[in-house]
């Protein structure tokens, strides 16, 4: 390994790890948490505005796509101009998106606010941007653990905000609840100052243009394999998250079972993301990813093969919750390990785009095949097959830093 290809170690660390972790974790708690309960607004908004469910669902689908598509650009801007600037803009967009979600009186305006604005806001306030700072400010020996802590905070945000948002809607009405959340999103702004790096990302690692960095990543087989794995992650998680309540309802289980399952997924997700990040410091991350995808395939197979009871649902929810976002820390830590930290946010955004394409297909195909066959069986088996494929494609991922003989250090 030559000097240029050594994993980038921060040359100066004026931001303390505690500061980075507290601010980063709080930002991701807010950004991931607020968005997680948006489904709770479906009934009140569609009833109040007289819209169809499709109008609401389409706006949220647009939001997910916008999040994925804007991710690489938000990451690129964060790497170029500083993550805190992107976080500031993201927080403002988040607030505006929530306010416009509350005020929109037409389907088109709702799509613009709840769809495009909030999707862009999420791309600027979630993992890819925050992980760029963590990768640059935390020593490589603790990077995966730090990413695990931040991902666990995001998972906690998702777990926390569902009952909070439910209480807000019940207590002050759906519209005021959105305005309160808009104020909550603005808390990201002071927290972003805590992630202001004294040294631009452009100075971290070898000189390389954006196009060269992207070309290098796409021509490196392991990057494609990571993207393939993340695609499967998005497909499985969002298919289960969106369609499982309907699956349980079809099988005659009570709504309370779905709610407790939701709580268990949220609770175990916190443990899973932290564990995956911590294990990433000690074990090859490709094996961690392979194991996660293989276990998901096993868990789904057992779940759909065994008789469906409330307890089988709870056990499945706990197991899947543990594996839910646990792919996030190892995937991003491998990206930093291979390509260095200079374009970490941009490359993290590109990998995440693949996750969002998988998410979109998981939701869409779930509905499409249900309509065509009258059951979710086929989609469950597709999820199993994809899990096996993802387990296999992660095995040959090379975690060592890429060789860059011709590049000069900045």
């Amino acid at each position, binding site marked *: 390994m030559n000097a240029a290809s050594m994993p980038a170690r921060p040359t100066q660390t004026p931001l303390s790890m505690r500061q980075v972790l507290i601010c980063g974790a709080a930002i991701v708690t807010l950004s991931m948490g607020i968005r997680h309960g948006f489904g*709770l607004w479906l009934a009140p908004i569609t009833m109040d505005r007289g819209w169809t469910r499709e109008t609401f669902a389409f706006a949220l689908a647009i939001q997910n796509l916008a999040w994925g598509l804007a991710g690489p650009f938000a990451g690129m801007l964060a790497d170029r101009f500083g993550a805190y600037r992107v976080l500031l803009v993201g927080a403002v967009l988040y607030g505006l998106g929530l306010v416009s979600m509350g005020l929109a009186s037409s389907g088109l305006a709702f799509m613009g606010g709840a769809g495009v604005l909030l999707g862009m806001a999420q791309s600027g306030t979630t993992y890819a941007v925050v992980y760029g700072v963590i990768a640059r400010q935390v020593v490589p020996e603790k990077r995966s653990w730090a990413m695990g802590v931040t991902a666990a905070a995001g998972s906690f945000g998702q777990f*926390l905000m569902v*009952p909070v948002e*439910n209480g807000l*809607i019940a207590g002050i009405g759906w519209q005021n609840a959105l305005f309160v959340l808009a104020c909550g999103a603005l808390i990201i702004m002071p927290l972003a100052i805590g992630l202001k790096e004294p040294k631009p990302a452009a100075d971290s690692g070898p000189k390389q243009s954006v196009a060269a960095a992207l070309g290098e990543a796409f021509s490196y087989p392991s990057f494609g394999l990571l993207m393939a794995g993340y695609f499967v992650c998005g497909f499985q998680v969002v298919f289960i998250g969106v369609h499982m309540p309907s699956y349980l309802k079809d099988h005659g289980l009570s*709504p309370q079972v*779905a*709610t407790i399952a*939701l*709580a268990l997924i949220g609770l175990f997700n916190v443990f899973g993301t932290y564990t995956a990040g911590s294990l990433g410091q000690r074990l090859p991350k490709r094996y961690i990813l392979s194991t996660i995808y293989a276990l998901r395939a096993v868990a789904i197979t057992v779940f759909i093969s065994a008789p469906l009871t409330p307890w089988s649902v709870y056990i499945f929810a706990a197991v899947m919750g543990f594996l839910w976002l646990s792919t996030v820390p190892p995937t991003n830590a491998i990206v930093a390990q291979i390509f260095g930290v200079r374009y970490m946010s941009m490359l993290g955004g590109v990998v995440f785009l693949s996750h969002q394409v998988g998410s979109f297909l998981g939701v869409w195909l779930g509905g499409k095949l249900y309509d065509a066959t009258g059951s979710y069986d086929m989609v469950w088996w597709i999820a199993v097959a994809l899990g096996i494929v993802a387990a296999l494609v992660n095995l040959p991922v090379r975690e060592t830093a890429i060789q860059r003989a011709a590049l000069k250090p900045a």
Partner: protein
Amino acid sequence: MKAPVQRVLWWATAAAALAAVFVAYLNPHTVVDLATRVWACF
């Protein structure tokens, strides 16, 4: 404060926060209210 004590405090705080949120989900009023909203989507 010594590091092990600090670590125990961090873990205790995290466990208490998680338990508090989980209990919030199990509150009978919340379960019914949340279930109604989740079910309304399907």
